[in-house]
């Protein structure tokens, strides 16, 4: 019996072709039939006597079946993580998925200390490890991937500085490792100049062919930050890669460019085209949602949010869309609820944090808004927007000094953002440093103009008006009028622009024009006290100054027989009148000057608030890429 059994076993062993089963495992994996793959991988491991490669594949199957601890155990029990680079990678990956970053880090550091592999150099110190087909030409990739994972581990442990370093190393090791690049760029780890520095330092020429280099650089550049400074929409692609012109990623990059140039209509046109082809394009969605918020298309947002939540309830973007919808229709409570849900799903989802802050800011709850922005600023070291908003909130709570500090900080990250420059101008204005304010505003304006010389986005109307206010303060009345007129062209029928123009006219002594402008202001906004009082003064002055009708004689015409006496009387009287007028004029001037001080504050204030809103919306998608 026993012999017979032995015999049978032997014959089986002889007949078994392990490679066949290995192939079977791969093919089942390709078909995502993980149980089958696991079953056979397990058998292969036993059959081959725990060949490290086969153990790796078994662990791989476990990983794919989300049995992370089992996989870790499998590898660690055999100590393979110390000898086999692939196994190390898989172990760390599993621990990360199992949310145990400390263990992962421990393993990584153990391995490093033992010095089996030196991840930072090209040399593999221990020759025993690498004899795997996968690694033959992809050693760099693997090393880069492990570095990337290390970065992920650090990030999961909230050690974002080290994480960034790891990502950078990973990217240098393998410039094609988009994952590391994405982690750096999307999570706002770097400021814009750091980003471009990184891009310059990447060894493109070593790792790719000459013509490829340009392509890679272009693709990466399209992903870089765009909101720190407005710029022209990108030029047409070079001819050898013209085939990419229909690529959705590039279209999204273009849409973002439009978005940060405040050209929301064009942006939404592009995003809609993209979403038509790929309805759930993940990098397009945030831009699209931001656009819809900006254009206040509540209905579209509602539908989109519903679809997203139905399909991807576990994704932060879905709940972000819901929160944005409530934000647009002005229901802050539910907006906050869903935005906070988005932030719990993905703690690094910047737009949700900012929108969360906006939902407080919209209701003048400055402290809570600031808290949210602070959180955002911690998460997004390379992004200046949270700082900008904190500064705004400080400004609104009359803490000008602190506001200025934050703006300066924001400016150190993004020195070219016109929004920041504009806010610096407002601060200077409030400090009554009008020349400084003018300088800031002018600089912001020239930055805005650099996008498109002839067309300025409507968003920038407050900037022009603020320039007008500043010029008025500096007694450059004609320029002030010019700026206000430009503002009017951008945003017609704006009552505060009209009343500002009226005020300048009044100061210039163009009473007739002043009356007209104040009338227009009141025509749009009836309950404007400044315009009402000013109109009162100006009308009075105009009526005092102008003759009763065009071509009226200076003297009262004599009535037929004219005794001299009454004439004399009347002349005297008129002189007396004149001096009286002069007094009353002076008086009214004084009063108007007073009234005016108030308004300037007020006007400046009121023109600030739109900007605030501006930037608020802005942020909603600012972060994403």
């Amino acid at each position, binding site marked *: 019996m026993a012999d017979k059994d032995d015999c049978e076993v032997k014959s089986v062993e002889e007949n078994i072709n392990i490679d066949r089963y290995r192939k079977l495992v791969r093919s089942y994996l390709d078909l995502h039939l993980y149980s089958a793959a696991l079953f056979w991988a397990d058998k292969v491991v036993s059959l081959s006597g725990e060949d490290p490669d086969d153990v790796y594949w078994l662990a791989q199957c476990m990983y794919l079946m989300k049995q992370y601890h089992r996989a870790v155990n499998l590898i660690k029990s055999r100590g393979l993580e110390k000898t086999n680079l692939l196994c190390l990678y898989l172990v760390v990956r599993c621990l990360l998925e199992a949310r145990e970053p400390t263990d992962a880090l421990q393993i990584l550091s153990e391995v490093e200390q033992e010095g089996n592999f030196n991840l930072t150099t090209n040399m593999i110190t221990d020759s025993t490890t690498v004899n795997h087909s996968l690694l033959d030409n992809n050693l760099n990739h693997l090393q880069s991937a492990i570095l990337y994972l290390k970065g992920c581990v650090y990030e999961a442990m909230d050690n974002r500085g080290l994480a960034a370093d790891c990502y950078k190393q990973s990217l240098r090791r393998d410039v094609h490792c988009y994952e590391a690049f994405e982690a750096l760029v999307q999570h706002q780890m770097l400021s814009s100049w750091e980003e471009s520095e990184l891009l310059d330092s990447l060894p493109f020429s070593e790792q790719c062919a000459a013509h490829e280099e340009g392509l890679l650089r272009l693709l990466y550049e399209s992903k870089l930050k765009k909101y720190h400074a407005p710029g022209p929409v990108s030029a047409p692609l070079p001819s050898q890669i013209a085939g990419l012109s229909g690529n959705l990623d590039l279209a999204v990059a273009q849409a973002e460019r439009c978005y940060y140039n405040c050209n929301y209509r064009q942006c939404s046109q592009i995003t809609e085209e993209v979403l038509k082809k790929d309805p759930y394009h993940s990098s397009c969605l945030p831009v699209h949602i931001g656009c819809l918020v900006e254009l206040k298309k509540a209905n579209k947002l509602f539908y989109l949010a519903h679809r997203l939540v139905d399909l991807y309830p576990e994704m932060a973007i879905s709940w972000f869309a819901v929160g944005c919808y409530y934000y647009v229709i002005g229901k802050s409570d539910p907006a906050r609820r869903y935005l906070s849900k988005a932030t719990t799903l993905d703690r690094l989802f910047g737009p949700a944090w900012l929108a969360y802050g906006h939902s407080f800011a919209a209701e003048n709850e400055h402290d809570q808004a600031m808290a949210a922005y602070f959180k955002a600023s911690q998460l997004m070291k390379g992004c200046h927007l949270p700082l900008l908003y904190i500064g705004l909130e400080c400004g609104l709570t009359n803490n000008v000094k602190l506001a200025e500090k934050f703006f300066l900080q924001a400016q150190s990250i993004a020195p070219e953002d016109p929004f920041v420059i504009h806010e610096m101008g407002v601060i200077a204005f409030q400090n009554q440093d009008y020349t400084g304010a003018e300088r800031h505003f002018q600089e912001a304006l020239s930055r805005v103009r650099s996008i498109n010389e002839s067309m300025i986005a409507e968003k920038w109307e407050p900037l022009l008006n603020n320039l007008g206010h500043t010029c008025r303060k500096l007694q450059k009345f004609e320029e002030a009028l010019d700026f206000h007129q430009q503002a009017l062209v951008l945003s017609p*029928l*704006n009552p505060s622009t009209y009343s500002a123009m009226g005020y300048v006219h009044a100061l210039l002594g163009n009473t007739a024009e002043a*009356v007209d402008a104040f009338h227009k202001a009141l025509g749009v906004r009836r309950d404007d006290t400044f315009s009402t009082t000013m109109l009162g003064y100006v009308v009075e002055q105009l009526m005092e100054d102008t003759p009763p*009708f065009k071509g009226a004689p200076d003297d*009262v015409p004599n009535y037929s027989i004219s005794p001299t006496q009454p004439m004399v009387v009347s002349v005297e009287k008129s002189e007396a009148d004149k001096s009286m007028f002069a007094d009353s004029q002076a008086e009214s001037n004084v009063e108007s000057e007073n009234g005016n001080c108030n308004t300037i504050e007020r006007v400046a204030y009121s023109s600030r608030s739109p900007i605030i809103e501006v930037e608020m919306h802005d942020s909603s998608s600012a972060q994403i890429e």
Partner: protein
Amino acid sequence: MAEESLKFDLREMKIEIRKAMRQCQCRGLIQTTKWLSELNFALQDVKLTLGDVPPEIPDPEEEQELDSYLLAKSFFDVKEYDRCAHFTEWCRSPKTRFLHLYSRYLSGEKKKLENTRDSSCPNDPVHNANLRDLMSELKRDYLSHRLDGFGLYLYGVVLKLLDLQKESLDVFVESIHKEPLHWGAWLEMATLIPDRSKLNSLLLPDHWMKQFFLGHTYLDQQLNDEALDIYWMLRQNGFENSHYILAQTAIAFHNRRDVDMAIQTFRQLQRMDPCRLDNLDTYSNLLYVQEMRVDLAHLAHQACEIDKYRVETCCVIGNYYSLRSEHQKAVLYFQRALKLNPRYHSAWTLIGHEFMEMKNTNAAIQSYRQAIEVNRRDYRAWYGLGQTYEILKMMFYCLYYYKQAQQLRPNDSRMLIALGEAYEKMEKIKDALKCYFRARSVGDIEGTALLKLAKLYDKLNQTEHAAEAFNEYVRDCESRQVGDKSELSQAFKHLANYYIKRNQVDEAYQYAQKCLEYEETKEEGKALLRTIAQRRSQQEEGDMQVEDDNSPVTRSRRTLLTALTEYR
């Protein structure tokens, strides 16, 4: 202008009109098409041969989009504007592009009209989002020089609605240079020209359409004689059958307060084109002023039969009710007119008048303001505003509005008198006097300037002037056989008193006599006569003392006269 007396080549003109009609029609510019067709009809005696108006050859770009265009145009014609806009979104040929933008504009305006709950504030900036979008899109096209004459027109219209007048005017001028026969652009432009100097400074194409435009603008600017000259010239040169010109002539007469001529012209127009509703509201104003109840009632019924829901009809009916002092109903109809077209300025003015009648100053102010917003040259609205503020005792405002009205009608004594009264209330006597003087010199319509002047002098105790003015007033009234009875009697009383004080007994006697003719002053007249008689006797005594027997005959005759009158 009229001296140039252009000789028109009517045949050439007709060909041009025909071509322009086609252009406008395919773009859905129905009002201009209507206007051009009327003009074309007026030239029906000019015969064209078959080849004169060549069929249009579409360029390849248009040809490519022809299917979209045809679809969109059919939607446009049934007023499905959004649908039309959707199907033309990506079209590039100017014609289809225009249709796209125009339908978006119309759709926005339609929604705005439907969404404004009360008609008191059509300029709510909330509803202007569509216009702003359109503006930025048009601006982009404009800057890249892709707008043709019609596109420029639309850009101008949008700019104008957003109150960017200067920019809008420039665009219209450009548009007109490209499409001189597009009457709509001329019309829109006319409202942007504040006065004649501005008109002369514009660089307009030297086209026969300019004559029509000048006529229209002169009329708008109350330069009625100039307008009449132009229309006369046009009628001389081949347009004698144009109903449009006839209507414009009637309006010119109306503006000149040449009421009879105006009514006559309107009647003629009605005979020629009985179903025409355009400008009938002006006709009804005339009938209202003349208090021709029967005619107005007839007109109201007639208009109502033709089309109940036309702005003009509503105005006619409103006027009719107003004349019957049913102000509530009148307001209702004017409001309906405004619902139909919130940019119809004369309805705003009329509704303001009704609110004044109903003592609702707030509503009146709002309405007048709207009227001005729509058309800054509506002097009646400015005047109405002045009146309301006078009631509210806000004199500076009142003065300002009266001045505006006066500037628009420099030769209308009513504005000057209103101004004078306002100055008087503000104790600015000198200015008040100037106004009254001016009112007298420009031709006093209501004949009150002298009276005001006299009373003012009286108040100032400048009795000689007062008397002089009263004298002239009385003479004026007698010669014209008009004048308010009580005012006249007061004038006589005043004069009598004045002469008594100056001891000019004869004159005093004469005026005291006049006082007797009026019910109000009869008793006072008698008392005056008594004092006069007393004075006389005193004088006689004094006379007798001084000079003994100087003219006893006359004296006796005088006493006789006194006796006689007292007898009567």
